[in-house]
């Protein structure tokens, strides 16, 4: 077991807030919000918090100026020095956390200001949308120190922006600003600096207004099934979920039992 690295202080690293109908998870770790461990989030706590607050949408953001400058490089060096095998297993479990975020049955947005590097960018990539302040910066700087993204960046980024641009971005380790990130389709919209959180909450409130949770979760579930590559399941599930929603609607409109 890689003490410290394996057991990150997940419960202390992310703060939970609710604003209206929108949940806000804030990464808080020093001025750069570094991610000390792939175990940055207690998924059980997130699940129960989302359920108990009946949330339909969620924002991930960073406290203060930066979203997250990425993993704690010192922690990675120490963990790798102890056991490369255990480090790989820890990263696998960290990927499970990001898979959990990607498959959440609610709409998720990464509200990004300042640095969004490495593991921070991988968290943002696991969200449905990325809303960036004009001052945001994006990079996978791992290449510059002889490593590579390890929490899904090598497959989530190409899926989002295409193979070539993703490969160039990851191998070069270069930093891009918000405007270029928008051109690359790495982010969905750019808003004035320091308004990214407010813009994200407003976006989500507008998007889910008048929609009920089963409707939203059904849409996301079918998206995830297709992205997972199981087309047969995706098609069947879409039909089943459509029928379920339509049936509920028929009940509501008093149309149950035919003409």
């Amino acid at each position, binding site marked *: 077991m890689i003490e410290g690295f394996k057991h990150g202080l997940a419960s202390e690293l992310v703060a939970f807030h609710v604003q209206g109908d929108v949940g806000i998870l804030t990464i808080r770790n020093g001025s750069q919000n570094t991610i000390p461990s792939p175990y940055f989030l207690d998924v059980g706590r997130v699940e129960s918090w989302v359920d108990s607050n009946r949330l339909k949408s969620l924002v991930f953001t960073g406290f203060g100026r930066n979203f997250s*400058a990425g993993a704690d490089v010192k922690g990675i060096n120490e963990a790798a020095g102890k056991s490369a095998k255990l480090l790989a297993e820890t990263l696998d479990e960290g990927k499970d956390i990001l898979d959990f975020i990607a498959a959440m049955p609610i709409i998720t947005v990464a509200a990004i200001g300042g640095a969004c590097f490495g593991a921070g960018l991988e968290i943002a990539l696991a969200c449905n949308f990325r809303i960036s302040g004009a001052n945001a910066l994006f990079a996978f700087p791992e290449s510059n120190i002889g490593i590579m993204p390890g929490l899904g960046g090598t497959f989530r980024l190409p899926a989002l922006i295409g193979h070539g641009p993703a490969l160039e971005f990851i191998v070069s380790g270069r930093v891009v600003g918000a405007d270029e990130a928008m051109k690359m389709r790495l982010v969905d919209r750019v808003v004035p600096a320091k308004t990214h959180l407010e813009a994200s909450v407003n976006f989500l409130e507008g998007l889910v207004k008048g929609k009920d949770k089963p409707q939203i979760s059904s849409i996301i579930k079918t998206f995830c099934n297709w992205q997972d590559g199981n087309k047969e399941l995706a098609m069947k599930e879409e039909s089943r979920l459509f029928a379920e929603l339509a049936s509920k609607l028929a009940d509501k409109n008093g149309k149950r039992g035919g003409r």
Partner: protein
Amino acid sequence: MATITDEIKSEVEKIIYDFFSEECEVEISDLKTSTRIIEDLDGDSLLFVELVEILKKKYALDIQLQTLGKYLIKNPAETIGQVIELSQLIIEHGNGIVEIVKR
């Protein structure tokens, strides 16, 4: 190597004061060339990365952060005055900055 005019020097200085005032939420009148970015403004290295990106965009600069990192190891920029001086050197020399031997 680009020539940097007095006008651009003043413009860079203004950009830097405005940037630190805005990002660190400090009045411009409270900032001096001797103001230390980490100790006095509670800043960090990412502020400098952000500033370089602003300068790159404004002056169409060719400068890699890795190159800048090599220069900064030998010539750290800890105060606003040093950041101004470094920014002007970046505009003048771009990636060639690493060849400069600071007197």
